[in-house]
């Protein structure tokens, strides 16, 4: 009995080592991204994120392209939100968080000593999982960003454009002075998107933006994403594979990996490719298991 157990333990360890070996294949990724003619927004080279010295994601290497919707999918705890929050330095708010490796934004080191996280967040906006409108009027919610940036000319036009951009204008144009808390959940989330685009960012990060919404609101936000990518690069974290399949151009699949003793777990990039390929003809069996619903 004990012999059997120790053997299975060893096998798991071997399997884990094997999985780890499969997981990192940077050459292949570079080959794929070289095939794409699109400009790169983010280049990640061996990025690790640690919380209090413990890795949450390890060895992420991927390029994120301009005016694409890039989806990060994977099971809970695989570090997709952690990875997303690195991209606009929101992880800086957690004192114990640490980012290692190279993370380039338009070729600039995002974590370089001269880089101010506040400036980063002006260029790389974020929409959160739960709609988080400010307890102010609809107008003031959208105007907040431009105001703090000192762009106070034509504020009305900026607000209108942002609300139009978020497909919310027609629903709220007659009640701009009402409190944003009176909007429905889906409207609140579109307001948050409007608030984000009012700052005129270059990239929008979305952290499971539809997980708190009903299917109709979700559909509206998905349509919106497809419109928004005309102008912005979008990175979206989602646990909804259909959503990733519907809206994204490229999909990255992350998975939880355990160390030999199963004491520590971290996220690892398993596959990153054109969405169609990831969902129809994945090159990694684990991706196939996940997207076909066998695991996760």
């Amino acid at each position, binding site marked *: 009995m004990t012999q059997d157990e120790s053997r299975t333990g060893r096998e798991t360890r071997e399997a884990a080592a094997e999985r780890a070996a499969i997981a990192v294949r940077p050459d292949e990724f570079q080959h794929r991204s070289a095939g794409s003619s699109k400009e790169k927004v983010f280049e990640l080279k061996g990025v690790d994120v640690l919380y209090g010295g413990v890795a949450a994601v390890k060895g992420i290497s991927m390029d994120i392209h301009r005016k694409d919707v890039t989806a990060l999918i994977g099971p809970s705890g695989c570090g997709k939100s952690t990875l997303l929050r690195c991209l606009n330095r929101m992880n800086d708010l957690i004192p114990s968080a640490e980012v290692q490796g190279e993370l380039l934004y338009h070729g600039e080191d995002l974590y370089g000593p001269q880089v101010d996280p506040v400036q980063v*967040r002006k*260029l790389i906006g974020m929409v*959160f999982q739960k709609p*988080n409108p*400010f307890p*102010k009027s609809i107008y003031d919610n959208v105007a*907040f960003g431009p105001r*703090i940036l000192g762009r106070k000319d034509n504020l009305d036009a900026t607000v209108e454009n942002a609300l139009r951009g978020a497909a919310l204008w027609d629903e709220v144009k007659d009640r701009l002075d009402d409190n944003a808390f009176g909007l429905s959940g889906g409207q609140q989330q579109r307001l948050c998107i409007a*608030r984000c685009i009012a*700052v005129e960012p270059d990239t929008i990060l979305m952290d499971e933006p539809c997980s708190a919404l009903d299917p109709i609101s979700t559909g509206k936000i998905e349509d919106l994403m497809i419109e928004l990518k005309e102008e912005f690069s979008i990175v979206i974290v989602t646990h909804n594979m259909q959503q990733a399949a519907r809206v994204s151009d490229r999909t990255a699949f992350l998975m939880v990996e355990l160390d030999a003793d199963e004491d520590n777990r971290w996220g690892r990039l398993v596959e990153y490719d054109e969405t169609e390929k990831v969902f129809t003809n994945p090159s990694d069996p684990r991706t196939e298991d996940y997207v076909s619903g066998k695991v996760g």
Partner: protein
Amino acid sequence: MTGPGATAPRNRLAVAGARATTVAMLRNQPRRDVILNTLFAGMLLLAILIALAGLVALLVQAFVKGAPALSTDLFTNPPSTAFPEKAGFRPAIIGSLELIAGVILFVVPVGIGAAIYLEEYADKSKWWNRVIEVNIQNLAAVPSIIYGILGLAFIVRGPLDLGFILAAGSLTLALLVLPMVIIAAREAIRAVPDSIRQGSLALGATKWQTIRSQVLPASIPGIATGVILAVSRALGETAPLLLVGATVFVTFDPTPFGSDGYSAMPVQIFNYAVRPQEEFQTLAAAGIIVMLVVLLAMNSFAIWLRNRYEQRW
């Protein structure tokens, strides 16, 4: 036993039995439970009646005794030892108003500032920040007479050396209620969810912009409530004022920095109440009515403000 035909009547019997038991149980609440329930409810009611009785007795007593003296003279006339029928509270009322104005001027910026530091900037893993936190709680429980001694030693004399002026009294009262304001402001700031801060920071706002434009506006109702309650406490305090120069007998309108002395409502009431003449006692009761009305109005306003404007997240 096994056939369906055999089990059906037995089932019916079992169901009927169970129902009968249930009905019996539902209808016959044990006598002991009834008595105990009534007893407990009665005791709880008694507890609240005792609490209310004090307030009611105070109000009735004050109104019965003070009603004859209630007139506008109370607000317009200075005190007098010779003519109790003409004596009023004018300098004391003005003194109290100036005192609390000073308290507000001092306590609002300092209290909110301290609360912002503790909630938004202090690193809780550092021991000195934890020491500060615990001690603010302790300060709120320090007896007011000790603040009076502090005011006398450090504000009236000592380092600040302001002398027995109204501003010194104001500053002493402000120190006394400052912990209350800090605690209330911290709670209001803490009630603002992190998602608001993150939403603001994600738009490229700096930490200070986030605090000023999002956190503070959202916590103003809670802070205002705390300030009003603190001011109403300051308004009713007597002991520290006696130590820092609220002279009992002032017949002129006090000024914040005048060195001729000042008075305040509770001090003046005390002064009238200890006099043997009936007229002065009536006057003291009338003063109590005025103070009670003002204090109850302020506290009610604080509660209304909290219920009306408190943000529900």
